[in-house]
């Protein structure tokens, strides 16, 4: 998951294609996109934390630039629908285990070299090879031979022992057939694999990448997307310009894009109001209060929901939270609608399902304990034998979680009579360190933004034993079994059905509490006549028209 550090951990999510409504004012000004072709726009950005290497970028600041600089095998449509082929000509499989991938011929990298099958295979092998230390290495774990190139440290990174050298530097499951064809063999059938291919970890890398250090490449990245890299002045701006040899669907309409790197969103907002900035993807809270942003921006204000959900997770390693009835009682005692209205001014929607309903394969409204029912909550608490001691809800205090976490604790206190309160831990890093070490002493906030649009991404990482974000250590063998079957199903439809069964069991166990679905409030300048947001709520710069 990509994560925005400033908004701490919940990053922007995304969703619907949203067509900005600027057309009403722009219709009769005679522009008609005529001044787009050599136009320039300035959009909001955040200094990337790492050099721009796709497999080593997990935060939104850099991720956004990478999404513009690269085009993957598949792309996720702006309307949140199923992925479509982009660089791929076809992706074929009969058993969800062996995939034959054919790519479009003669698409180009920004340095003029042709994108060939080996550019994908080499890039993936580089990312998976453990001595390269790529943050996204685990995305390749499905591929046969991953265990040979990626060796875990036997006693963890803090232990005295060093990780063993990998026994191979290439995954045996990747085979280049010719310039335009390659074959991927997975360790086990995975129906969702083609969907994953649009995530930035799977982008191709040009030959130039392999002849220099990754850091140096990342300072002057060469991609294959609709814009190419011009310059990067740290903490000031990243400049991009249209790639004229781009032959795929989403060509740029404007020419130059400057991503201005801000530290403070209020500064960016003031720039937007005075016309120095053309697009801001998340309006600061100060402007959301009292709907100030709507009166400031008028029809240039854009409101959308995103496939990101805020949860409260339970630490299963703490005996006090092992009774499902207690967890259900807590869930039913929370009035999500009130939190959404009073604290978020309606910009976030009360959660009522396990996977975010914007995700393909997710069923809306399948969380039976997400409603507010104080009477039933009390009864369940009595059946669970009450709760002894203090229930502390934890959050990271370096971002705006205090208000809603306080509200949750207060509701639990009022409706269940449990001695509950919320406590902030100083920073996201301190908070996550405790979560990762399984040392939480009470329920804690969590958030999840999908990496790729499929319900699989909402079940395997969160509710399956050993899942990458199942930090509460929830485990139900039956859920694990169903999720495994679902992942290995021969088709996506069959897979979604099985996942629905797994989620029904999750709904009985209540391992965490979905609280709200994120919304995103953005705005653009008067200069932009038309634009769309992509499936994660960032500006789709290829759709911008002036």
């Amino acid at each position, binding site marked *: 998951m990509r994560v925005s550090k400033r908004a701490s951990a919940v990053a922007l999510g995304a969703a619907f294609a949203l067509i900005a409504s600027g057309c009403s004012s722009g219709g009769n000004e005679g522009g008609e996109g005529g001044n787009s072709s050599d136009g320039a726009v300035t959009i909001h950005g955040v200094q990337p934390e790492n050099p721009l290497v796709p497999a080593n970028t997990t935060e939104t600041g850099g991720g956004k630039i990478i999404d513009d600089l690269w085009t993957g095998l598949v792309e996720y449509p702006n309307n949140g629908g199923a992925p479509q082929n982009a660089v791929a000509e076809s992706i074929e499989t009969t058993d969800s285990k062996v995939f034959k991938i054919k790519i479009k011929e003669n698409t180009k990298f920004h340095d003029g070299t042709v994108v060939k099958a080996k550019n994908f295979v080499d890039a993936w092998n580089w990312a998976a090879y453990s001595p390269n230390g*790529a943050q996204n290495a685990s995305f390749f774990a499905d591929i046969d031979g991953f265990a040979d190139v990626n060796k875990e440290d036997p006693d963890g990174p803090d232990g005295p022992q060093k990780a063993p050298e990998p026994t191979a530097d290439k995954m045996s499951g990747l085979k280049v057939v010719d310039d335009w064809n390659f074959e991927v063999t997975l360790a086990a059938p995975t129906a969702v694999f083609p969907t994953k291919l649009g995530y930035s970890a799977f982008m191709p890398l040009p030959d130039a990448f392999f002849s220099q250090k990754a850091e140096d490449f990342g300072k002057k990245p060469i991609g294959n997307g609709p814009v190419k890299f011009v310059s990067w002045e740290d903490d000031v701006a990243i400049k991009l310009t249209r790639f004229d040899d781009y032959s795929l669907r989403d060509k740029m309409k404007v020419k130059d894009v400057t991503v201005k790197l801000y530290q403070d969103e209020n500064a960016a907002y003031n720039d937007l109001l005075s016309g120095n900035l053309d697009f801001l993807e998340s309006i600061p809270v100060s402007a959301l209060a009292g709907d100030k942003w709507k009166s400031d921006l008028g029809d240039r204000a854009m409101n959308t929901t995103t496939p990101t959900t805020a949860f409260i997770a339970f630490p299963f390693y703490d005996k006090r939270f092992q009774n499902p009835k207690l967890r259900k009682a807590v869930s039913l005692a929370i009035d999500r609608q009130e939190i959404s209205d009073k604290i978020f001014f309606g910009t976030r929607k009360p959660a009522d399902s396990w996977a975010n309903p914007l995700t393909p394969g997710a069923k809306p409204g399948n969380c039976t304990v997400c409603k507010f029912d104080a009477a039933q909550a009390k009864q369940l608490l009595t059946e669970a034998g009450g709760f002894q001691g203090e229930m502390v809800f934890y959050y990271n205090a370096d971002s705006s979680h205090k208000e809603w976490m306080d509200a949750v604790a207060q509701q639990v206190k009022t409706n269940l009579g449990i001695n509950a309160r919320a406590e902030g831990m100083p920073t996201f890093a301190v908070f996550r360190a405790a979560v990762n070490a399984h040392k939480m002493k009470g329920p804690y906030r969590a958030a999840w933004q999908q990496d790729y649009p499929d319900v699989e991404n909402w079940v395997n990482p969160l509710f399956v034993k050993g899942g990458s974000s199942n930090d509460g250590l929830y485990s139900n063998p039956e859920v694990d079994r169903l999720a495994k079957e679902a992942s290995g199903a021969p088709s996506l439809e069959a897979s979604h059905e099985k996942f629905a069964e797994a989620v029904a069991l999750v709904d009985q166990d209540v391992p965490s509490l979905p609280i709200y679905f994120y919304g995103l409030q953005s705005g653009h300048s008067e200069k932009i006549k038309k634009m769309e947001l992509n499936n994660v709520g960032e500006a789709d710069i290829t759709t911008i028209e002036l």
Partner: protein
Amino acid sequence: MGRYLLRRLLQLVPVFIGTTFMIYWLVWSVPGDPFAGKCGERRCPDTYIAFMTEKYQLDQPVWVQYATYMKNLLQGDFGTKFSGQSINDIILTSYPNTLKLALVALGIEAVIGLGAGVLTGLRRNGFLDNLVLISTLFLIALPIFVIGFVTQWLFGVKWGIVTPTVSSEMRFSELILPGFVLGSVSMAYIARVARTSIAENRRGDYVRTAIAKGLPMRRVVGVHLLRNSLIPVVTLLGTDLGALMGGAIVTEGIFGINGIGRQVYRAILTKESATVVSIVVVLVLVYLLMNLLVDLLYAALDPRIRYE
């Protein structure tokens, strides 16, 4: 004078080593693991953590890390950030920006603050005196971010006189507003200190003598009175340059200036000891040298002060 200077310069060495070690140790002991929050709501892969730990020697004890850092520092290498960015580059780009901002702020506070101080000190209890007293009280009472946001909104958004944020070229015209905001509180103090100092010295024997001697009033004030009254003001201004540079975090954030305040703030959050210490090292040097300069200026201003 020469020996005094040498002694002062030698004193800088232990102060320098002491402060750098303290800062290094403080940042190092901030709780939290630099990679715990790096990959969002999931753990970073162990292979990534192992790779970074080894690359930045994070598994070594703090004094070994510090020794390595100092060794590189003496060779002019401040190290690199976790992102691979060279800290030398960061310092080279962000320090001039902050320095420019601080100098503009210093200029504004010296001119306005001193002007207001001299005028009110000479004519006490008049309308102007009361106006300055009230307005300085107002400035001191307001937190700096309130002044920043309000002026930015008024001048930048509402009236459109200036751009709300400063561009990367750091033009002088763009820096006037942030400079005023940054210097506003010190400006108020300087006005008050100058006023008191002038008012006190106004009754001094030497002023009476000068007037009795028949010197024109302009010379009495400009040469005799002002020079003697400037000592507390110069102390304030000199140490203020350091304070302005270190205290620019809020102003830099509001006006989008790529200066050291912003760099230090981010580095503390991400536990990048090397970056924090490197920036502060330069800041410590600025402080120490400004202090020295102020002490030397005393002698120039007041002939009664001599250094042996």
